């Protein structure tokens, strides 16, 4: 076999490998976003229940509850983009955080079995969401690295792959971890 032919074959193999690895990374991101979506949906499903149980008591936080309901309705709309979902999740996390803090001001509410149940369920879902978010961020980081690093960036450019957004941890969420509450 002539040398140019060998070089051509090697180059072709490298190109195929690069292409495949990029596709695999993109699919990994989508795949993990599907799990994020599942757990987010799980949390959204808890919200009507939560709103129903606390609205009787929470006169002053009506606007908070309305916001949560509105966010949920928006998240349930079909065909919304991943970026939009990520933004909605951030807003939802902080709104739910505020409600949970507000619950502390109502001793009746805190002792309510139904609310307690919801709180615990929410905490569990939050942990799952956090795990899903971390997985998603790692997949996106791998993907972003691949489309920015040499040599795969050239190929990514041809395939018109764009950078994807990661989940950012909401400031209020960082503060809200109350271990005692989690495990009582």
């Amino acid at each position, binding site marked *: 076999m002539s040398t140019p032919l060998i070089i051509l074959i090697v180059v072709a193999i490298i190109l195929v490998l690069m292409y495949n690895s990029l596709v695999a990374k993109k699919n990994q991101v989508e795949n993990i976003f599907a799990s994020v979506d599942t757990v987010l949906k799980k949390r959204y499903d808890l919200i009507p229940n939560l709103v129903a149980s606390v609205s009787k008591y929470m006169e002053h936080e009506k606007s908070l509850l309305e916001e949560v309901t509105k966010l949920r309705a928006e998240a349930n709309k079909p065909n919304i983009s991943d970026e939009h979902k990520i933004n909605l999740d951030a807003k939802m996390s902080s709104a739910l955080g505020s409600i949970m803090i507000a619950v502390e001001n109502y001793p009746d509410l805190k002792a309510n079995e139904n609310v307690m149940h919801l709180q615990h369920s929410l905490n569990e879902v939050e942990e799952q969401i956090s795990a899903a978010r971390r*997985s998603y961020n790692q997949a996106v980081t791998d993907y972003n690295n691949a489309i920015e690093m040499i040599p795969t960036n050239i190929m990514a450019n041809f395939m018109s792959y764009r950078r994807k957004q990661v989940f950012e941890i909401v400031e209020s969420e960082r503060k809200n971890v109350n271990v005692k509450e989690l495990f009582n």
Partner: protein
Amino acid sequence: MKNVSELTDFYYKSLYPALQKLEADRKGLRKKIVIVAAIYTFLVALITYNINTAYDFIFVAYIALGTIIYKFMIHDYTHEFKMNVIKPLIKAIDSSLLYSSKTHVSDYIFNRSDLFSTPDRINGNDYVKGNIDGINIQFSDIHAEKRTKSSKGRSSWHTLFQGLFIVAEFHKNFEGQTVVLPDSAQNTFGNLIGNWLQSKNMARDELVKMDDPEFEKEFVVYSTNQVEARYILSHSLMKKLLIFKKKSNHPLHVSFIGDHIHMALEYDKDLFEPSVFKSLLDYKVAMEYVQTLHLAIGIVQELKLNQKLWSKK
């Protein structure tokens, strides 16, 4: 649970009468062993001198028979030691714990942990089982070996794992399998090549890159499920495992399979055995017994396994 210094106090105060008696036994035994070893070696040397051939065979037989004689000689002393020192120590940590000097964690559980390739022979002793803060826990010494055959057809045993093997219930629900191993590739070859090598490990599931740099440097994680692996290995558990690893100062393998956490700590020696040539009152000797027991039984609190998720209560 008592802390290490309280246990050390217990060792030197409450166990002192037993230790003193054992010390006397030990000194007598040591003398006996030296004498027997000298006679035994002299006899073997005499035989070798007369036969004048098959040196390697004689050497292997010398070591093998010597080990058997040694084990036989220290048998009673070992038993006395375990019943009068190790058992009370375990009871002092938690009186509900059960101790058996002869058995070990079942082969089934060891194989389930998926931390090492399937062994052909599992030995072990010093089995402890009990319930700490509502969490079932068991651990023992384990020596797992695999048989390999050379091209000549001679089989030999090599060690897969020797050390402390701990199993406990885990406080979160999960379905897949997640394995945490000491990171050798990344330490040897650096991040880029090490990571690439790890992702090509055919014997393991998918590589999971964790978002804690220190943890990632120390360990490598494989799992059947990327999200679940992170659900199990929360930021706080990663921190706790790192602390545990530093405290134990031995290579640590962890796996999360079938609602349980399995931990294998490589010591490369049989633990909880009485020292024959060093005094039992030696601080270092005492500390090893105390610390190892405290470390194993302490994992429930150390890793906060007792803080069960609400849906698991």
